[in-house]
C-alpha cells in the first residue's frame, strides 16, 4: 500500500509527470525556435531548460484579477478540476513495467471519460469568465471537441479491439509480439491528428487563438489560475503522448534484463524514448502549419479523419476475425 502511494506521488505519478511536462514545454519552445531560425529560451539554466519552471513560478506570485461579471465560484474551482484529469490519467499508463500504478480491468473507458471530462471543464471555464473573447472561444471549443472526439475514440477503440482488452496495461501486454502500429498505421495517424486538436496545437489552436481572440478561453485568467492552466496543458501533452505510446507503440516494452530494478529502469527508458519520438513528431508538425478556421477544422475532421478512422476499425475487425 505504501509502495503504491509512493509510486503514485513520485514516480511514475505526480512528480514524474510534472517534470516531464516542464521538460516538454522547454523542448517544444526550443524546437519551434530552431525551426524558425531563432534560439528559444537561453538564459534560465543550461540552454534555458529551467525556463518553463521560471515562468510557472513567476505566474504564481502575480496578482489574480477576477472579471467583474464572471461566475466566481466556477472561476475559482474549475482550474483545479481541469488539472486533475491528466494527472489522474497518467496513473493508468504503464511506464516502469507492464502494469501501471493503478491499472484495473476497464481503465481505457475511464481514460476516455477523463478526456471528455477535461474538455467539458474547459468549456465551463470559458463560459464562467464571461467576456466577449471567451464566449467566442467557448463556441469554438465545443465545436472543436465534437469534431475531434469521435476520431480519437475510434482510434483508441481500434487498438482495444485488436488487442482484445479494455485495459491499457492489457493492450500493452498484447503488443509483446508486435506493436499495434504495424497493423493499424492509419489509426496512429488519426490518433495523433486528433490529439493535436485536443491539445490545441496548430493548426488546431483555434479556441485559444492568440491573434484573434486574445487568448481565447485563457484570456481572463491570471496569476495562480493561469499558472496551473498552462501547466495542465503541458501535462495533457505528456498524457496524450503517453497514450499514443501505450496504445500503438507497445508502451515500455522492449528487451529487458531479468533483474527487477534494472528491468524497471529499462522499461522506463524505452517508454521515454518512444514518448520523445511522438512528442517530436507533434512539435515538428505544429511549426509547419498556419491556423485553420473553426469551420474548416470541423470540415476536416468530419469529412476526412472520421471516415479514415472508421475504415481502419473495419480493417482491424476483419483482421482480428481471420
Amino acid at each position, binding site marked *: 500500500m505504501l509502495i503504491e502511494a509512493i509510486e503514485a506521488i513520485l514516480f511514475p505519478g505526480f512528480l514524474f509527470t510534472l517534470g516531464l511536462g516542464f521538460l516538454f514545454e522547454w523542448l517544444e519552445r526550443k524546437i519551434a525556435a*530552431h*525551426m*524558425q*531560425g*531563432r534560439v528559444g529560451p537561453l538564459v534560465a539554466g543550461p540552454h534555458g531548460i529551467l525556463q518553463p519552471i521560471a515562468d510557472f513560478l513567476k505566474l504564481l506570485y502575480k496578482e489574480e484579477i477576477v472579471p467583474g461579471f464572471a461566475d466566481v465560484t466556477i472561476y475559482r474551482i474549475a482550474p483545479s478540476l481541469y488539472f486533475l484529469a491528466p494527472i489522474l490519467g497518467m496513473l493508468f499508463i504503464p511506464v516502469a513495467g507492464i502494469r501501471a500504478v493503478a491499472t484495473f480491468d476497464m481503465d481505457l473507458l475511464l481514460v476516455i471519460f477523463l478526456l471528455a471530462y477535461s474538455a467539458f471543464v474547459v468549456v465551463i471555464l470559458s463560459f464562467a469568465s464571461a467576456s466577449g473573447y471567451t464566449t467566442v472561444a467557448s463556441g469554438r471549443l465545443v465545436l472543436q471537441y465534437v469534431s475531434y472526439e469521435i476520431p480519437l475514440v475510434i482510434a483508441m477503440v481500434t487498438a482495444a479491439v485488436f488487442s482484445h482488452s479494455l485495459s491499457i496495461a492489457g493492450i500493452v501486454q498484447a503488443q509483446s509480439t508486435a506493436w499495434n502500429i504495424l497493423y493499424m498505421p492509419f489509426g496512429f495517424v488519426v490518433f495523433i491528428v486528433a490529439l493535436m486538436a485536443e491539445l490545441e496545437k496548430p493548426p488546431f489552436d483555434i479556441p485559444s487563438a492568440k491573434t484573434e481572440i486574445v487568448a481565447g478561453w485563457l484570456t481572463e485568467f491570471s496569476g495562480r489560475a493561469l499558472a496551473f492552466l498552462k501547466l495542465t496543458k503541458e501535462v495533457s501533452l505528456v498524457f496524450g503522448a503517453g497514450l499514443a505510446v501505450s496504445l500503438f507503440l507497445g508502451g515500455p516494452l522492449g528487451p529487458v534484463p531479468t533483474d527487477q530494478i534494472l528491468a524497471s529502469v529499462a522499461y522506463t527508458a524505452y517508454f521515454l524514448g518512444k514518448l520523445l519520438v511522438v512528442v517530436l513528431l507533434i512539435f*515538428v508538425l505544429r*511549426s*509547419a502549419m498556419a491556423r485553420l478556421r473553426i469551420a474548416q477544422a470541423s470540415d476536416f475532421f468530419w469529412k476526412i479523419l472520421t471516415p479514415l478512422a472508421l475504415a481502419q476499425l473495419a480493417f482491424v475487425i476483419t483482421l482480428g476475425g481471420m
Partner: protein
Amino acid sequence: MIRSLVKKPDTEAYPFTKITVPERYRGKLDIDPMKCTGCSICAYVCPASVITMIEVGKRKVGEKEVPVKRPKFDLYTCIFCAECVDNCPFGALEMTKEFELATPQKETLIMTKALEKWQ
C-alpha cells in the same frame, strides 16, 4: 524546414557578443572643439532643439565687443538626423558609432566639451 532545425540560428547573441555597425552609422554626436567657431548654424538647423548656444566670453571686432558663444548639446533629445553634422561649415561635428546610450540619468548625456575647451 527540417534543414532549419539543424542549421545555426540567425539570432545575434547580443548582449553577449559585440555588434559591429557600418561606417556611416549615425550614433552619438561628437564635437571637435578646436574647429568650432561658435557660428550657431548647428543650433539653427537642429530639428529637435538639442543645441543651446551659451555665451562664454567676449571679443572685440573692430570697435564693438561681441559675445562669443559655444554650443551645449542636450544629447538626450537628439534624433540622430545629422543635420548639424552636414551643415557645420568647419566640419567640427561628427557622428560616432556609439549606440549604447541608455542611461538612468539624463545628465550623463549632456555634452559640454566645446564650452570647457574654450580658453
